[in-house]
């Protein structure tokens, strides 16, 4: 039961490992960045799952505030908003570096780049 109940954690682990595998196994710099993005997105899922409760509402107080005894924790969601921004910035820097590598080497394949460096 708890195995099924934690399926969003399993999804997070699956995404994380497949992203990690892509980063390690692919030689293309863009594909590596895609893998890196999948990898960091899995952590977003992990955080969001952490704050969510079945049937929980937003923690907002109104005159019937007793109605909201069960609420989700908003802090992990807010934290992950920051982490998403960081992820976007990382991708931007990574893509900018890839563009510059393409300008200077004329390729974005890791093995070709290495061959060009070694031939010098």
């Amino acid at each position, binding site marked *: 039961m708890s195995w099924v109940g934690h399926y969003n954690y399993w999804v997070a682990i699956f995404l994380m490992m497949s992203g990690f595998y892509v980063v390690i196994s692919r030689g293309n710099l863009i594909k590596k960045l895609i893998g*890196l993005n999948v990898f960091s997105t899995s*952590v977003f899922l992990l*955080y969001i799952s952490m704050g969510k409760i079945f049937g929980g509402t937003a923690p907002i107080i109104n005159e019937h505030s007793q109605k909201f005894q069960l609420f989700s924790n908003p802090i992990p969601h807010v*934290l992950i908003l920051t982490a998403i921004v960081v992820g976007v910035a990382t991708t931007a*820097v990574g893509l900018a*570096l890839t563009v510059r590598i393409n300008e*200077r080497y004329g390729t974005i394949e890791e093995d070709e780049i290495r061959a060009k460096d070694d031939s010098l």
Partner: protein
Amino acid sequence: MSHLPILQVIIPLLAAPLCIVFNNRRIAWFVALCATWASFGVSLLIAQQVLQSGALSYDIGGWPAPWGIDYYVDSLNAFVLLIVTGISALALPYANRSVEQEIDPRSQPYFYSLLLVCLAGLLGISITGDAFNMYVFLELSSLSSYALIGMGPRRRALTAAYQYLVMGTIGATFILIGIGLLYSLTGSLNIQDISYQLHANNIIGSGNRTLLTAFAFITVGLSLKLALFPLHLWLPNAYTYAPSVITIFLASTATKVAIYMLLRFCYCVVGSESIFQLTLGQIVLLPSLAAIIVSSVVAIFQYDIKRMLAYSSIAQIGYITLGLSMSNHSGLSAAILHMFNHALMKGLLFMTMGAVSYSVGSVYLTDFRGLGRRMPFTMGAFIVGGLSLMGIPMTAGFVSKWMLVQAAIELGWWDVVILILIGSLLAVIYIWRVVETAYFNPLLELEEEEIGEAPLSLLIPMWLMVIANIYFGINSAIPVEFAQQAATLLLGGM
């Protein structure tokens, strides 16, 4: 309430956009210079206050600690702040001429701006008492350092920066997971509060698996960031191809700040009495010893001297984590002191590399022929840095290595003592190769071209570092005092 802790981060952070607004390389450099010197002043004031009246705490926006973000300075991070700002205050005067030669004039304002953002990030990591805030600052400093390394003059700087970006992001993501798991256990992000919750709810004593997983993630992530031996692959390329100033800056500050984070998480969150401490010590011990021996041996076979020093950095990080893995008072003091001393000697050595690359154009071993005569002041500084690296008495490196050896003897780890000494002997070999080439390999008549001494603006910061290396080797009372206070604090819990 004193506003010093927030000023420490705000000054470089606000000065960074100013560099771009003026969009003039001289003004940008001057702004950066003023900002780093101001930060150094602030960190001196903070250190003085911490030594006099104990830890400082600063609630940002007036929100009290467990809910709001607080900046918390005790003798450990006051010391780290001093290292970071001190090195940058010396690197900036050096930067003017070196950057002028290495970086495209149009990018120079951006260069200084990024440097300040990186500095703000490193200072932020050191000063904040909030785990998530630490992650954000870590990414701030890492992202700017990827860009800075990519600005290096050779094209391999770009691939080095890319490699660092991939490995650094994986490390940072691991840290993020660890912090998330800690949050799910305790419902708190404040480091002191996490520690309190863990102890109050007896989570540590019960050997909780979430806690173990959280620490596994944080330790691996931080080991990537601090380049602990098998996870060091990004470091040699990044240090070799980065602009000279960036190598000086990152080599002496970035890895130290990551080590600080590891110390903070291991000792302040879990506390020294717990079972994890023991396993962590065992986990870190072997990679540290491997780092000392393997990286020193690899350094001997390098022909690019900047790369050689990068490998030597990995070995020196091994010494620091070795002290950390002993987890007794003298080992920890030695580790913290070695953070400071390694910043001094590696800062100095990379400064001499910057000067050689300024005058000669590259830093291959063959370029050093005859430099003992042509650049006497630079090579003199290199020798002092090298002696400090080997741990010769009267230099800063000796004091911390001596403390490390004493700590190992105290534990009865004689094999570790021998390995530390072998590491020092290996350092003698790789430093000697350079000294021999510089002083005893004369140039052929044909090759006599005019290569003069580096300009004064490079030599003055370099020789200030030389003086620091010798001064703190002879009179090490102040840093030792700081290191021992910090070690006491770490072992006593917060």
